[in-house]
């Protein structure tokens, strides 16, 4: 009973965190599923967004403007990766790793050389804060996060139904076809990476506010958490959710489930230090399952052919 009680007490916080990382996971979905690029920039751009947002807010900038600046900074990071990949011929994964590494220094610069910068909920008007995660009030982060996500998903749904959004989907689906239809695939990939990292940086800005500080390491392993959310969402809802907007909702639910499960295993006594190992194992497993599913039936038919011979 104690466990259930503790879990229920902790779940509003876990759901808030899930929604925050759901925003981030939407950014990952855009590159990983739509553009078909595994973009590791996000580990850096998440922290960039957090750093920019916190530093600007400490300077007295309006939190929404600070969030917008985080988006722009993330987009610039995405552009760096995009240009390295499309104009310098560096494989996408390596381009992302390079930008991510460079961003570590950039993020330290943004925070004036410090590894973390705090932002206190008493002194600043935060959009979301962990402090109110359990409260039944308008300050509860759940409300603003749900609205934020609804607007974000609506905007993306609209965009991917436009000519340019369709061109982006085509580029991810088949670059040969896209070029043959006159689409500048290099530019489209770069803009896709900018959009994705802009969203991730906004998530970073919100996460920093939520936890009360921006940290230069806050993005470590972000790509894996994003992928976990994408995959959990797909495994559970791919049959039910066909519509693009619903697929994005599935990603967000995936992130929430990820944080609820995390909460449960932590309460069950798992060492926090082992968390990343567990996450990596789970994501690896989910990525491997579709591959195994394809491989196993082939073996069976091969066996049957032998019998006939």
């Amino acid at each position: 009973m104690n466990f259930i009680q503790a879990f229920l007490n902790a779940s509003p916080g876990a759901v808030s965190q899930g929604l925050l990382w759901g925003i981030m996971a939407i950014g990952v979905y855009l590159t990983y599923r739509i553009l078909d690029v595994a973009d590791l920039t996000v580990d850096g751009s998440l922290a960039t967004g957090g750093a920019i947002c916190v530093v600007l807010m400490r300077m007295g900038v309006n939190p929404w403007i600070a969030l917008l600046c985080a988006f722009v900074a993330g987009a610039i990071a995405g552009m760096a990766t995009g240009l390295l990949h499309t104009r310098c011929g560096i494989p996408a994964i390596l381009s992302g790793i390079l930008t991510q590494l460079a961003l570590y220094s950039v993020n330290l610069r943004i925070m004036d050389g410090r590894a973390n910068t705090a932002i206190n909920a008493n002194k600043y008007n935060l959009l979301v804060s962990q402090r109110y995660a359990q409260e039944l009030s308008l300050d509860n982060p759940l409300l603003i996060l749900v609205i934020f996500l609804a607007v974000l998903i609506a905007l993306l749904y609209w965009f991917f139904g436009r000519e340019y959004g369709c061109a982006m989907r085509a580029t991810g689906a088949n670059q040969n076809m896209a070029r043959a239809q006159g689409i500048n695939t290099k530019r489209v990939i770069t803009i896709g990476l900018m959009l994705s990292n802009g969203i991730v940086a906004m998530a970073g800005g919100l996460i920093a506010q939520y936890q009360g500080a921006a940290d230069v390491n806050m993005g470590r392993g972000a790509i894996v958490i994003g992928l976990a959310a994408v995959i959990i969402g797909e495994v559970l809802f791919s049959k039910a959710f066909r519509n693009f907007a619903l697929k994005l909702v599935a990603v967000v639910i995936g992130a929430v489930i990820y944080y609820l499960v995390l909460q449960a295993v932590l309460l069950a006594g798992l060492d926090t230090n082992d968390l990343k190992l567990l996450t990596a194992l789970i994501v690896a497993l989910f990525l491997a399952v579709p591959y195994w599913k394809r491989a196993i039936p082939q073996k069976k038919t091969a066996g049957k052919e032998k019998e006939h011979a």
Partner: protein
Amino acid sequence: MLELKNVFKTFNAGTVNERIALQGVDLHLKEGEFVTVIGGNGAGKSTMLNCVAGVHSVEMGQIIVDGVDVTHLPEYRRAKYIGRVFQDPMMGTAATMQIEENLALAARRGKLRGLKAGISKAERENYREQLKILGLGLENRLTAKVGLLSGGQRQALTLLMATLRQPKLLLLDEHTAALDPKTAAKVLEVTERIVSANNLTTMMITHNMRDAIAYGNRLIMMHNGRIVVDVSGEEKKQLTVEQLLDLFSKASGSDEVNDKMLLS
């Protein structure tokens, strides 16, 4: 409509794998000409077509489409003038997108893409009509994912996409080679219908000598990166497979004839 002037293309230049694929190709296609291209493996057929499409850049020479020098234009900008169908049925369409979405992408070939609707209601009706021309029943499956279609259906759809906005030049790269004979015949028949209805300037690579003779109003044969046979008009109409083989051995100076060319 299409002009190739002394075009040279070398792969892996300066390495042990260096291979000269095109050695001074000159070709002039008039408007409405439908040329079939044959030749053995490595003769340079696909290389020539890909140089025209902009997949490969050329070392020397000039490529002019409809009076525009496209030699240094990237592939996506040449798409404004050129419609293409590939050998691999997977290559010409986006499998994860709907039939109508693929057509809508093709309808915007060469146009600036902005934030207007990706597909409009009026377009949908038009696509339904266009798909009827193919005679494959696709007009009732506008929202089906292209990945669900067979290879032949995908090639027919790619062909429709390539010609939806009238191209200055249509490039067909062995577009029936991956299909079974019955489907191949059907796709060729549709090709012929669309090309003649729109009077399209067309270049079609084929491995099949009979098809090369049966279709189009001009035939060229390539060997070692050069055009070695070029027949058109009455001469082309009267051509037989035996004569073609004869022309080939004379031009190439050998009896070596590709098995695939004979068998197909």
